[in-house]
């Protein structure tokens, strides 16, 4: 009963998100504006990496930047959650019977879908130019890996958005710093092993680290169990962050009720 209600809240919040998205993009503007921009970014970073690093990592770098695209989009949850505060809907949400976490979980899911699509197009359409060829059987697995990576990153982003909801002026800094950090330390540009061990341990908790390993193994025609294990680890990271985010939202509401920070006037 309570679970079904929670799921309904997520579903309707997601519908709200999709309507919001549809009000921002048309098919054409998404395809030629957004997708075009993200694909150029993948090409740019891959080529820039070639100038700086060793050419042997070329393929990994392309895969890394392609997968990173869906993470960048998933991390937009940080900024879009903050819009809720600016719209003045936060107190209305708090005073409704729905849980804040369920609402926010649904509210930005459009980025997961849009991000997965962007990365998918990048990997499939640009892959051949960078020496990455996909067997037909691998294509559905690509989608699964992307979805898990993007959802996991989304959950991590949800946690960060709780911080940003308390200090909305930080919303762009937090989302930019976090994905730049992921780009640097999680194996996108250089392997994780390049960095000191403590950084590596932290990177192990971030979904993209595992998502990338899975995608690289897949691109190299690696064994299914190897891919499967990394997907599982990425999913576990996602579960970890979703639990942390749920707890953080509860604390946010409680703290706001105590200190009066849930404002409703302009």
């Amino acid at each position, binding site marked *: 009963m309570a679970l079904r209600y929670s799921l309904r809240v997520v579903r309707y919040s997601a519908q709200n998100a999709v309507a919001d998205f549809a009000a921002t993009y048309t098919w054409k503007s998404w395809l030629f504006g957004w997708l075009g921009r993200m694909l150029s970014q993948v090409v740019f970073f891959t080529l820039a990496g070639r100038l700086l690093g060793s050419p042997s990592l070329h393929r990994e770098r392309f895969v890394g930047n392609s997968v990173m695209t869906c993470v960048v989009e998933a991390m937009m949850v940080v900024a879009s959650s903050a819009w809720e505060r600016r719209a003045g809907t936060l107190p209305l949400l708090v005073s*409704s*019977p729905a849980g804040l976490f369920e609402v926010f979980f649904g509210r930005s899911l459009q980025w997961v879908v849009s991000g997965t699509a962007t990365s998918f197009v990048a990997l499939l359409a640009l892959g051949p130019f960078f020496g990455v060829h996909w067997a037909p059987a691998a294509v559905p697995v690509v989608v699964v890996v992307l979805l898990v990576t993007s959802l996991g990153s989304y959950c991590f982003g949800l946690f960060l958005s709780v911080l940003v909801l308390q200090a909305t002026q930080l919303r762009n800094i937090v989302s930019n710093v976090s994905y730049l950090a992921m780009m640097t330390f999680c194996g996108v540009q250089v392997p994780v092993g390049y960095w000191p061990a403590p950084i590596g341990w932290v990177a192990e908790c971030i979904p993209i680290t595992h998502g990338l390993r899975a995608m690289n193994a897949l691109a190299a025609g690696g064994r299914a169990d190897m891919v499967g294990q990394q997907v599982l680890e990425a999913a576990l990271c996602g579960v970890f962050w979703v639990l942390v985010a749920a707890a953080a939202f509860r604390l946010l509401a409680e703290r706001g009720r105590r200190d009066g920070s849930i404002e*409703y006037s302009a």
Partner: protein
Amino acid sequence: MTNAVETRGLRRTYALDRRAKTGRSEVVALHQLDLEVAEGSVHGLLGPNGAGKTTLCKILATVLLPTEGEVRVFGRDVRTQTRKVRRDIGIVFGGERGLYTRLTARQNLHYWCALYGLRRPAVRARTEQLLERVGLVDRADEKVEGFSRGMKQRLHLARGLAGDPRLLLLDEPTTGMDPVSARDFRSMVDELRREGKTILLTTHDMDEAETVCDVVTLIDGGRVLAAGDPRSIGALVSRHERVEFDFVGPVAETVRDLLDLPGVVGCTSVSPGRHRVETADDDATKAALSLLVDRGATALTTSRPRLEEVYLKLIGDRGMAVR
């Protein structure tokens, strides 16, 4: 009958920013506030800026915790039975925020109905009913960002009713509305009262309070100053009835004769050529009226002190100063 709202010794303070060197570490927004709102009534909350009205609304809406004291909504504690309280309340506040402006009016309502636990068929049915009620059916599929202030406010009211609340909290709902919209809004409030809903309305508008409220509570500095029926609350400043009249020429003799009548307690000039007689009972009022008609006084009116006068008297005419 149970009370829709009951507060006992309610106190709420806000911590002040230490960096702002005001010398105080907290502001007291509500001070030992005792308030009862009967189920089914329209209860007005009046007070100057900073009186604590919004703070009270927020506490009842469960977005703010009381610092001390007890607060019950339909007998349920806002602190410990929060979820149940949330199912019974709806909130509407003035201004333009609180709506999803990139969505249409219909999409906004669908969403809130779902958050209040309705399932798909009921979500649709309730949405249509609400659009009808606030007169937005024709504009339901337009994006809210293009709405006028009055339309947004109607949508706000509809949104507040999404959960079919037993208690509706309206915090200055008519700010920024033109007189026609404000009048429509009041008639909607009236309709809700007839359906048995309890309404707590904060306002600065005395006419609004007088026309729609069954009971008004005047608060200032987080304390209740007075409470009562808005039409008889005038007794707080004067138990007397008034007769006002215009008089051309020397008025001294008429005034003397008026004061000789039994039950007439005073006579003052309210503006050049206009005077006011205060009377202790109906008989005295009648006698004063007939005497004034004999002497050729014009523009006679009888009245009791209005809410506005009570307000000014109790709160004081402190102009723009906010505490």
